[in-house]
């Protein structure tokens, strides 16, 4: 097999940081090469060098045996290197064709004379898009508007965009982070098609399962260095995790059977609307007992966010009732819910969980700053805050220069630890954890998972909402699957299978009585606003 791209001795320094330390990386023609590593391990720096965003301080890059310099992304594309970013670089109101032409506009024959006013040749571009999508099995409609497409389809547009620009090497940055398991599997089929036709792919991820599903070769980075490169056949998940973290990692959580006690959270017929006044939580009922973890599985955007917000008082409840420890909390302020013993690990740690410009010391008391011992009257006792911060930093292993460091300067994993520390450091009756490990590295995930189980074992009721099926399956005692605002089914975690859950997440199947419920639910969604709809029933 020929070598498509070879990088040797790549070194890149940033002020105070050695981001890449003599990294060697070899991509063979026609292979899918997974690049694993924790956040901050140097994967992105390496890829940005290959994509021309950074220039290496040392080292050289060989493309098809030729020594090259990649001066800019534009240059990278010209040399046949394309990249699909984690955050798509698409213009939502434009069509797929227009997005793909952007920056490389084709001009209709004969209209060059018009100079800047020359006419765009959409038709031939659309034709070429159809060819490409057929050839590689990428279902993309050139005339669709990007904002109407699903996330998976948008990703396919990004891939077609790279192929349209004649990319021979594709770099995919965390491509599955936004996909459902099924969509991810579809993507893997596409990637297989691509390499079968001679393309080479670099696949950046931190999910071990995917690496085994798709990669031909696996390279692992740690702390700016290449920790090793193995073939999937020779690797185990434990081995890869150890290469990533630098120590042995326990991937499966040891947990005893649940010991459910009294009902802590009782939700009955809950209905919640999103900001555009669409009903997105529709007639949900569930209950969580002390000492058990109820996992809510589901693809992002099926109402989990609004459900969590409604339970924690951040969003208005339209219908139904929420009871926490026999106290009606349906329409109360967030503070009352928090004072009732509810801890909340929010889905978006930057939006809700932390004040990034504040110090850790202050973030640790974000919800309790007004209570003794942190405040005396209206005065905050800062020595006590310092002490509290030191204690939590130690207990929860937050890697930080000190308590006065601003939360924004920490890595994602450490930020999440700060939130977990804060939420678990006060008496917890009910823990609502929403996507608690999203975007984190293996080491942090392990740590946080252990803390959640610990909270359960100490008698807290835990509601875990996650789009990561692995997480749900390894932590939960019971699993509810949420789809389009409904709970399709609640399964016992010990018997539920991955396939079963995956189908439910895609809205297929579900327990018998739920199918009609879903339909009537849909009607109710429009019903109150529209008398016409009501007449059709």
């Amino acid at each position, binding site marked *: 097999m020929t070598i498509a791209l070879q990088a040797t001795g790549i070194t890149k320094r940033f002020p105070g940081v050695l981001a890449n330390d003599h990294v060697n990386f070899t991509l063979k023609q026609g292979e899918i090469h997974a690049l694993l590593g924790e956040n901050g391990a140097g994967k992105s720096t390496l890829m940005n060098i290959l994509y021309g965003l950074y220039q290496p301080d040392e080292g050289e890059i060989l493309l098809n045996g030729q020594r090259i310099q990649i001066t800019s992304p534009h240059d990278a594309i010209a040399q046949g290197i394309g990249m699909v970013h984690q955050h798509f670089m698409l213009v939502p109101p434009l069509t797929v064709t227009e997005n793909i032409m952007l920056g490389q506009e084709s001009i209709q024959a004969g209209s060059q004379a018009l100079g800047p006013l020359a006419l765009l040749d959409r038709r031939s571009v659309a034709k070429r898009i159809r060819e490409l999508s057929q050839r590689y099995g990428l279902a993309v409609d050139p005339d669709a508007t990007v904002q109407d497409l699903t996330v998976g389809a948008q990703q396919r547009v990004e891939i077609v965009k790279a192929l349209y620009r004649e990319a021979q090497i594709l770099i995919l940055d965390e491509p599955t982070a936004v996909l459902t398991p099924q969509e991810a599997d579809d993507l893997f089929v596409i990637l297989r098609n691509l390499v079968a036709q001679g393309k080479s792919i670099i696949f950046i991820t931190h999910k071990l399962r995917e690496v085994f599903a798709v990669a031909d070769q696996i390279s692992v980075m740690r702390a700016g260095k290449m920790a090793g490169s193995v073939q999937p056949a020779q690797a185990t998940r434990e081995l890869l995790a150890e290469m990533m973290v630098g120590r042995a990692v326990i991937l499966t959580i040891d947990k005893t059977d649940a010991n459910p006690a009294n009902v802590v959270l009782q939700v009955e017929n809950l209905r919640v609307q999103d900001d555009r006044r669409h009903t997105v939580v529709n007639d949900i009922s569930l209950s969580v007992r002390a000492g058990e973890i109820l996992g809510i599985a589901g693809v992002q955007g099926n109402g989990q966010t609004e459900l969590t917000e409604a339970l924690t008082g951040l969003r208005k409840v339209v219908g139904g009732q929420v009871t926490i420890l026999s106290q009606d909390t349906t329409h109360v302020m967030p*503070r009352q819910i928090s004072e009732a013993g509810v801890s*909340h690990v929010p889905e978006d740690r930057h939006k809700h969980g932390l004040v990034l410009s504040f110090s850790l010391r*202050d973030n640790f008391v974000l*919800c309790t700053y007004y209570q003794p011992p942190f405040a005396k009257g209206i*005065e905050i006792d800062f020595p006590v805050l310092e002490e509290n911060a030191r204690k939590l930093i130690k207990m929860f292993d937050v890697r930080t220069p000190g308590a006065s460091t601003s939360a924004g300067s920490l890595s994602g994993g450490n930020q999440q630890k700060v939130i977990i520390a804060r939420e678990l450091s006060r008496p917890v009756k009910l823990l609502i954890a929403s996507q608690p490990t999203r975007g984190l590295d293996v080491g942090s995930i392990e740590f946080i998972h252990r803390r959640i189980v610990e909270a359960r074992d100490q008698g807290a009721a835990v509601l875990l909402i996650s789009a990561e099926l692995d997480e749900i399956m390894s932590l939960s005692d019971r699993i509810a699957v949420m789809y389009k605002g409904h709970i399709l089914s609640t399964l016992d975690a010990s018997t539920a299978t991955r396939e079963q859950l995956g189908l439910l997440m895609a809205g297929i199947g579900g327990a018998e009585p739920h199918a009609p419920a879903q339909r009537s639910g849909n009607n109710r969604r429009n019903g109150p606003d529209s008398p016409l709809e009501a007449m059709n029933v």
Partner: protein
Amino acid sequence: MSENRKTNPFAPFLSALGRALGMPALALLTAFIIGAIVILLTSGDLLAAPTAYWGLIRGALFKQRGLSESLVASIPYVLLSLGLSVGFKSGLFNIGVEGQFYIGALCAAWAGQITTGLPAIIHLPLALLAGAIGGAIWAGVPGYLKMRTGAHEVISTMMMNYVAFRLTEYVITDKLRDVNSTTIQTPSVSPAAELWTFAAIPQRLQDPLNALGVALVLALLTALVVRALADRPDWKAKLGARRGLAIGGSGLLAGLIAFVALPLLTNAWWPFTDAYDRLHTGLIMAVLAAVGVWWLMEKTTPGFELRTVGANPNAARYAGMNITRNVVLAMAISGGLAGLAGTIEVLGVSICRCLPLFFSSGYGFDSIAISLLARNDPFGILAASFLFGAMRNGADLMELSSGVSKYIISLIQALALLFVAAPAIVRWMYRMKAPAGEEKQAPLTRGWGG
């Protein structure tokens, strides 16, 4: 560029200079240098810039009553900028401080003239309070509207400015016009409601009630200082359970000494002998206000809430804070301070101790620049306000002595602000490196989307 850096013999010197002085000081220095160049270019006279700057410095500091007048001009700046900074830190851009300044002045002018029968110990606090409350309400309303209707505070406070100007005009020319005066102004406030000038303190203290008032204030301040000191570890250990006694005792003692001794002492010796010096006790209030704002924002739970709401309102809501209450509170504090600025101008500076027409010109807008220059730090605001006050005051003598238009001062101020807002320019000029861990600053205010 890099070649240039190597050959420039001044580079090491300049970068050493840059490190030694802080960024605001450098920005200011640079602004003055550019100002000098502009003066040179427009006048064609090598001596014009030194003459002008010497006039500026002399007018601001050294000439008779120069320093006093600079301080007098700084006082409204301090209070208005403090008000703005509370808003900025809470994520609000209270561009309406000028209007709140007017309303404060109007309320104080009204409260000051209702009667001449009250003693100063009641009437002066009353008038001050009236002005502060007036400003607070005037700013609180846009805050409430923002939360209820989404009306952006920049728009609504600016509109409220015009309402304030016209309302003041109407009241001065009609409802509260001084019928004994041919000039259009409100009646003079009662002498008891006047803010004392420093020169008048010995004479004021001869009234036992006034001495009592001063003694009470001093007792309170002493108690607060002792209380703050008592929290230091070494003191804490020594005092133990006698902490309360120490605080109360020292306050009482200070008050007693002040009540007995101050009238006698000031009568015997007092440094402020110039009866025409306009420096007034508003200066003390401005400094106390800066300390108070610092304490409120940095040391208390309401301040913690305000800062959280300002830095990340979503997180504030998540943390159980009441956003509406905090936004209204931030606006009210902001407006209260602005109203106090207007009050002090009426009670302490205006020659009639009343509110005439055209009361202020742009104090509020200058103050936006001051709070930006000081990066909303209360003590930075004290310094920046003095700077602006001194420049405003010194500008006249600069123009008189050199013929350089005093509007050059506005140019210098604008340049200083530009350099503070864009420190990269200054760094480039002085060959400075960006600080390694360039701290992410909290945005001064969030976008216009509300």
